[in-house]
Structures are given as structure tokens and as C-alpha cells.
């Protein structure tokens, strides 16, 4: 990226959730996010990928200030968001908006689309005088490819894809700089998913937005992200340009993720060598010592249990959190 000044800087952020379950008698902490550092530059799409429980949604919530970090800082335009109050907080809330996965749960069933799209202006009154609201609603609906004449309908009268367009329209109402999209297309049918991805790309071009695009579907992330961060058990394992990470992954976990995608060539023959990882995600309440991926890694050695690898450049041109990355790693031996 040419602009050296990140819009959002996540610096060594940790989020632990205390576990105090009286019914089942468990206690301790969930290490949801553990020492994550990522930057988002203006006009950039940062993909954050990983499986459930990897901390990608918690990271999104931390950036949205829906959660406070246990330690570490998140900066917006160089200022720590934890210190934001009053006007500064309001500005932050206006400029950084969120799009959720669940298109039903994120829209109040008793509000018309006009209500949904004008609610931001009732909170941020300075933005738009009331007599301009109807035109703004029509403009927003047109922007996301919906019929402006449907402004007085209710959410249940729209399909899932249309509801996600409404969510996107609401997120855009206050002219934000950043959209944090948490699995924005994973609840949609394939044929509709493509439309929404195209819409997000168009909007980004038109308004120069930056996205944090949290998703588990690597093929979708490939279509929209400029850079990709791969998370596992609360930590970034690898981060770099989308094509490098997704086509030539250097971390064994990324390799497994990519190879697990069901793919076939034009003739319908299953392609590629699938790395089937043994076992499940370890509990984030009790992560493995050393490298957190080692319990499922086919390359793991004693060193991996003894010593946590750093997320540093290891000859593949991008930071990777693995002791055994070599530039030639790419086709793992028989698994």
C-alpha cells in the first residue's frame, strides 16, 4: 500500500473471556484473541479468515468497540479508540460501520425499510435535515440495487439477498470510511452470494471504502480481499497479499484450509491433494503450548511444543508463525 498511515491499527490486542460456569463447574479464561496485530490501510480490503472459534468475529467486535480488549490497543487514524468519548466516539461510530451475517436478526421486523435507513439520522442529527430523508432513502436503495418504491415494506417481505442489501444500505447511510463485514455472504445462496460480493466491490470502488472482510470461505475472500490474515485459536498465523496467501500458503494451517476446499476441474474431477487434518480445534480455554496448531500439524516436532514461533518473515516474503516454513514448502509430503 502506498499510504503509509493505517486507518485502523490493531496492536498486540488480546481478549480473554472469563469462564465461570457454576452449572458445569468449569472456570478459567477463553483466549478468544491473543496478541493480534493487523493494520487496515485506506481503500484496502483486509480478509480475515479462519474456522469457528479462531477469534475472527471477536476481532471484528473489538474493532467495532462492541468489546473492550483485555490488553493492547486499537487505533483509528492514530488515536486509541479506548479513549474515545462524546464527539470523538460519535464520529468513530459514524465512520466505522458493520454488516452482519444474519440478515434477519440484524433488521428489526417491526421497522419498515424507511425506518431502518433513517434511524442513523435520528442518532446523528447533524448529518442530514429531516426533509432530505426521503430522497436519501431512495438514493440508498438505488445504490444497493433495490427498488426505491419498496421503502415502506418490512424486512420479511424481502429475500435474504435483498435483506443483506438493506443492511449494506444502512451501513452506508452515514458515509462511513470503513465497513467491518462479519461473514456478509455466508448465509446467502450461491447465486445471490455472487451479486452481493459484486455490490460490495462496486461500492468500494465508488466510495474508496476500506473493508475488514471476515469470512470462512476462502474462495469468496479471494474475490474481494487485497490482503489476507489467517487466524487460528486467537492468533494470526500468516498475513500477506491475497494471491500469495491463498495460492501459495506458507503456513501448514493455511495449506490445510486451502486444500480442504472442495474443488473440481472443468471435467468434474476432484483436483489437488487434500490434507485431511486429524482431530478438532483444541479448546480455546486451554490452548496447546508453543505453537497452537501443533496438535493437528503433520510437520510438528518437539520444538513446536517447547517454543512459540513468532509471526515473522521467514523467506516467503510475508510474516508466518511457523518454525518450519521454508520457501519451498507448498506441497506437503504424504499426510
Amino acid at each position, binding site marked *: 500500500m502506498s499510504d503509509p498511515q493505517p486507518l485502523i491499527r490493531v496492536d498486540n490486542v488480546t481478549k480473554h473471556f472469563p469462564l465461570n460456569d457454576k452449572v458445569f463447574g468449569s472456570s478459567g479464561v477463553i483466549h478468544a484473541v491473543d496478541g493480534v496485530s493487523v493494520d487496515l490501510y485506506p481503500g484496502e480490503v483486509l480478509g480475515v479468515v479462519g474456522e469457528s472459534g479462531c477469534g475472527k468475529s471477536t476481532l471484528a467486535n473489538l474493532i467495532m468497540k462492541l468489546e473492550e480488549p483485555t490488553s493492547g490497543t486499537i487505533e483509528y487514524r492514530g488515536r486509541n479508540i479506548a479513549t474515545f468519548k462524546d464527539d470523538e466516539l460519535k464520529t468513530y461510530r459514524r465512520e466505522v460501520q458493520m454488516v452482519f451475517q444474519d440478515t434477519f436478526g440484524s433488521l428489526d421486523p417491526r421497522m419498515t425499510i424507511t425506518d431502518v435507513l433513517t434511524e442513523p439520522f435520528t442518532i446523528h442529527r447533524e448529518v442530514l435535515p429531516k426533509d432530505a430523508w426521503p430522497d436519501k432513502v431512495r438514493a440508498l436503495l438505488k445504490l444497493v440495487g433495490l427498488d426505491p418504491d419498496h421503502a415502506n415494506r418490512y424486512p420479511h417481505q424481502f429475500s435474504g439477498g435483498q435483506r443483506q442489501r438493506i443492511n449494506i444500505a444502512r451501513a452506508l447511510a452515514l458515509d462511513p470510511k470503513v465497513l467491518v463485514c462479519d461473514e456478509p455472504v455466508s448465509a446467502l445462496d450461491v447465486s445471490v452470494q455472487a451479486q452481493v460480493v459484486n455490490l460490495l466491490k462496486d461500492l468500494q470502488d465508488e466510495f474508496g471504502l476500506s473493508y475488514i472482510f471476515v469470512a470462512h470461505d476462502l474462495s469468496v475472500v479471494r474475490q474481494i480481499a487485497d490482503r489476507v490474515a489467517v487466524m487460528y485459536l486467537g492468533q494470526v498465523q500468516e498475513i500477506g497479499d491475497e494471491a500469495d496467501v491463498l495460492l501459495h500458503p506458507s503456513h501448514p494451517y493455511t495449506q490445510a*484450509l486451502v486444500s*480442504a476446499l472442495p474443488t473440481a476441474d472443468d471435467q468434474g474431477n476432484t483436483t489437488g491433494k*487434500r490434507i485431511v487434518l486429524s482431530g478438532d480445534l483444541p479448546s480455546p480455554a486451554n490452548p496447546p503450548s508453543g505453537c497452537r496448531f501443533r496438535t493437528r500439524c503433520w510437520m510438528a516436532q518437539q520444538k513446536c511444543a517447547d517454543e512459540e514461533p513468532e509471526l515473522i518473515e521467514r523467506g516467503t516474503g510475508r510474516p508466518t508463525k511457523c518454525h518450519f516454513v521454508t520457501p519451498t514448502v507448498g506441497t506437503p509430503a504424504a499426510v
Partner: protein
Amino acid sequence: MSDPVLSIDDLHVEFRTEDGVVKAVDGVSYELGKGEIIAVLGESGSGKTVHARAVLRILDTPPAHITGGRAMLGDVNLFDLDEADMREVRGARIAMLFQDPHTALDPVYTVGDQIVELLRLRRGISTKEARDQALELLERVGIPSPEGRLNAYPHQLSGGIAQRVMVAMAVALDPDVLLADEPTSSLDVTVQAQVLELLGSLVSETEMSMVLITHNLAVAVGLADRIAVMYAGQLVELGPAKEVYANPKHPYTAALLRSIPDIERRDERLPAIKGAPPNLLHPPSGCPFHPRCPYATEICLTAMPPLDEVGPEHVTACYHWDEVQR
């Protein structure tokens, strides 16, 4: 094909709602061979799940009503059976695997209790025998340290292990047919691969047949012998899996294939299908895909095209199938 295990013949299912009648399944027919895997592909609302639930007669009535057709298991039409006989079919002859294992398992009983109950009730064996068999089943579906898992409650299991438990229960009575409804859609991608591999090997080890309901074409082609594509309650294409994948003849199948994002390729714009799936309360006239179809002409608005033979064992319902490009 040898004698089919299950043949579905002109199945019709309606939902009678306050707003009107929805034809959720509108004349679906296919035959499932012994040891065969058919993938039924479609989007939400296409009728793929409803057709399977109709076969097992586990739809909620009302609003759902099976209004026509037959589901032949051997010589028996399942729709003629009384509820007691139908109960004997479920699990023992036709089993179902659901999308979300954590809602399918009972949260207040251990895994072992649930499998033991099933085996005692249906096999009439003692608790001790049932426990031994439960252990074998868990081993068979590749659950590590199965003894410990018998005493676990569902919430203590990860999604992948819970789905393996569901697979174990589904095959516990050696059914002839397994109806798997999006069995991996709620799982993480690395775990998805494991469960798909397990299902494939269970089918090849036994003579079980499987209907794999999925929205994922790549999953379908990787596992199934044949692919059936549903749209708006109708079967629009059916053929050998690789053939349907490589040479789709229905415009919907072709468009679906193109719209799937490919990790190997970054597209400036994804070739999306325009519009949205139809509202079945007010279905389009003629072919239900015509409002979204680039090939549509006058005739498509007037009558639903018949299923035409377009290749060996390959049929599709489109007037313009010979123009369709992948």
C-alpha cells in the same frame, strides 16, 4: 440400472399457508440404485429438503401435505403405510442425517444413552449388548477414544464429533438408504472434508445408498454418482455427476457453476445469476427459471418444458438446452 432401492414417482408436496398454497415439490421423479449416491442440488426454497422429508413422512402437517405421487421402497409405497409401519421404516430402512448435529441430539442425555436407547428399542437387545454395539459404532465412524465419548453430553462435543455421532446413529440399524440433508454445511471446512470422506467410505463399504442434499456443486461432484438439480420445486436436470458438472444442459445449472467463486481465479466481477429465486406463492408462468434466464424466449413463458433426454442417462427440462454453454 438394477432394481432401484427407492423410486420417487411424480412427488407433489404443498404447503397450505394463510397467504396461499405453495407447491414446494412439484412433480419430482427419480430412482436411487443400490449403493448409489445421488446428490440433490438446489438453493433454499428449491424443495430439496422437503422432498426428502416427504419420503420419510416427517413433514409437519399442516401446513405440509403430500398431494400426489409415490415413494416406492422396493414394492411398498411408503405413502400407503400406516404410522406404525412407517415407524419401522424410519431408521431401519431409511435413515436421515440432519444439518445441525447439536439440535438433532438431545442435550440432556449422554451420547451413549441415546445410541443405547435406539438399539434397545429397535433391535430388542440388552443394555449391555447395546453398549458394546454403540462402542463399535463410534469406532466405525472414526471417533477417537470412543469409550470416553459414550459418557459425554452433546454440548461437550465439537461440531465434527457430534456429526460423527449422528452418522453412527443413522447407520446403527443398517439402513438401505441414507438421506443426508446438508450434513456438512454447519461444519468448518477442515472438518467438512473429514465427514464427507467418512460418508463416502460408509457407502462404499456397505450396500447402502445415499441421497446427499447439498447446495455445494463441488461437494456433489466429489462424492455422488449422479446429480439431480432442483429449482422452484421441480427437477430441472438429472445426470451422471461428472457429466452434469462438465456439460450442464440446464441454464440454471450452468449459471450456478459459473457463479461459484474459484480460489484459483480472481474475477473482476463474479458472473452472478440476476434476480432472486422465485416466490413460490406467486410462481412465474411456464418455466420458473425464465425471469432469470439468458436463453428465455416466448415459449418459456407459456409452458414448463418436459424433461428431455440430452445424453446417456442425462435429462433436462429446458427448451433451449442445446444452446447452453457452461
